[in-house]
């Protein structure tokens, strides 16, 4: 029973890791830049949903939709307003710019909404599943269902639509894709929109799960999502989701052991070092 219950915790945790990292891996796949500000987008999603809940509507779904739309647009803004002008420079330039944006976003959240943690006043309206073997609370159920829905939708977009095809072309060779008639600018902007909207959704779901929104909530996410991206094999969406789930399972299993006192957030890096030593293209990478 205990094992099944732990598996539920692991799935929920892993699902959120995957959801955050998938946008990052999409950006990396096409532009080959490390988009650190993605973690700021994650926190932005939580703040937008919070202010919608406080000022507009107590409806969770409305808040989620507005947060995803806003974070999607914010992602496009970051691309078109900033990254766009750095793409022809050394890769270190967009990286540093990205760190700058992330830091600025953190401080902006603090200045606008204050340094304190806010509680997240939403009820998802789903039942709590109680079985003899495990319990899934309504929030956990919501995270699992929504993540699955988002990822299935993403899979369909990637594989069944023209946009998906354009992204695949762009990720293979940006200039060649452009030469072959792909509107690269639009393809990349849409890519940012979708990836950022998913990160925003992840932020809303975590705010709900932990009942907490605060300026630095993206900090751990900022580096852990990179680990997931690397483990998943830079730019592979499927690998990224598998890596997120795997990380969730490893963290949860080790965390449940009484004698294991290594910090949770260090586990990801330990795994990262091992993988880079023995399988530098990532666990699920094709490269």
């Amino acid at each position, binding site marked *: 029973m*205990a094992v099944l*219950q*732990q598996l539920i*915790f*692991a799935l929920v*945790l892993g699902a959120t890791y995957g959801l955050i990292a998938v946008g990052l891996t999409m950006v990396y796949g096409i532009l080959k830049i490390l988009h650190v500000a993605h973690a700021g987008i994650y926190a932005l999603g939580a703040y937008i949903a919070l202010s919608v809940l406080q000022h507009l509507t107590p409806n969770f779904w409305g808040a989620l939709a507005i947060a995803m739309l806003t974070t999607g647009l914010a992602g496009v803004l970051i691309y078109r307003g900033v990254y766009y002008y750095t793409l022809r420079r050394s890769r270190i330039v967009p990286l540093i710019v990205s760190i700058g944006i992330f830091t600025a976003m953190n*401080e902006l959240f*603090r200045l606008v909404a*204050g*340094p*304190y*943690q806010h*509680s997240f006043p939403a009820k998802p309206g789903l039942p709590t599943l109680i079985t003899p073997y495990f*319990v899934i*609370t309504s929030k956990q159920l919501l995270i699992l269902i929504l993540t699955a829905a988002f990822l299935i939708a993403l899979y369909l977009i990637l594989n069944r639509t023209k946009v998906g095809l354009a992204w695949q072309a762009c990720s293979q060779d940006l200039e060649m894709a452009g030469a072959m008639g792909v509107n690269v600018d639009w393809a990349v902007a849409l890519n940012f929109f979708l990836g950022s909207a998913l990160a925003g959704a992840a932020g809303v779901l975590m705010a709900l799960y*932990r*009942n*907490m929104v*605060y*300026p*630095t909530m993206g*900090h*751990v996410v900022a580096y852990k999502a990179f680990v997931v991206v690397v483990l998943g094999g830079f730019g592979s969406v499927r690998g990224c989701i598998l890596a997120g789930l795997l990380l969730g399972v490893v*963290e*949860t*299993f080790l*965390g*449940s*052991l*009484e004698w294991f*006192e290594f*910090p*949770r*957030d*260090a586990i990801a890096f330990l795994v990262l070092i091992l993988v880079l030593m023995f399988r530098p293209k990532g666990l699920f990478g094709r490269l």
Partner: protein
Amino acid sequence: MWCKLGLALLVILALGTFGIAEGNIKIGLFVPLTGFAAADGHSALVGAQIAVDLINAAGGINGRMVELVYYDDAARADQASAIARKLIEQDQVVIGISGSYSTPTRAAAAIFQQAGVPMISAYAIHPSIIETGHLIFRVGMGAPVEGIAGGHLAVEKLGAHRIAILSMDNDFGVSLSEYFKQTVLGLGAEIVFEKRYSLGESEFREVLSSIRGANPDLIWATAYYAGAANIVSQARELGITATILGQEGYDSPKFIELAGEAAEGVIIVTDLNRDSERPVVQQFLAEFQARAGIPADMVGASAFDAVKVAAYALAQVGTDPEDIAAAINGIRHMDDVVTGPFYAFLGREAIRPVEVQIVQGGAFHFFHTYTDPTIIIPPGL
């Protein structure tokens, strides 16, 4: 040209000297206003400002107004030491106050001690802070006292036999748990589970599942309020009904807001009694709420008290560092503080009753007070 510059310089110098001779009494404060500790830093700043404003409204210190000079240390040791130098050399403060965490406070304390300027730590509780030297003081309650009081409370008052310990893996969390553990073992209780977690952790479900398996009747979990809210709400979500015993890290209205229903019945060992009828407490609680927009927490109260202690010493003996140190050491029965009354300063630490509060109806309330000297005086004094 050079002549004019020289003249300007002279004027500036003259103004500077004038300012020092006749101006305000400067108290220096370093607080984390940005970064992960910004919330605590903000509370500490508000607490300190309330104290300064109250002192000035009552006519200042022997007729001179108090000026609070503060800088943001982002809870970082390197910034805190740079700020300590700035406060001492540039602002020429007569006393420093730490409204920050243990690591930056240790760094700054060394510089204050070296420069011969007294410093008071508000709520940073690492033992080595006051071991820095004879000019470094602390108003917050030390970890040994809090842990020992928690141990007596758990076994003698709450009747716990099977205890689980979950410790935050930093100076604060570990030293609290060490003294707690020694005390409960000495009183005959059994430790059925023990584990550390790292600072910043927010997912406790897996470790709480293991704790549920060990079937404790009481859980001692050290945490700051955000982590505490996670621990408490996730424990109740898993159906754990054991009493949860916390410490001053829980002591924030934010804990109750974030944990919601799950906070009910949680008991904490702290130094702030919100039900106290002493006027200074009620005045502070109201003023803090008005200025910060949230109810007062332990951090703000401790910073308030640090300024009060500094002002008391300055009023007694003036600005000589050695005299200030002697005046603080000589404090007996100081009632004009929020986390008090302070019975005395022993070993440069405030000795005061240990308060036990319980969450009921969405607020902290009185549960018990320890005044027994064997509990409230740190071991070894």
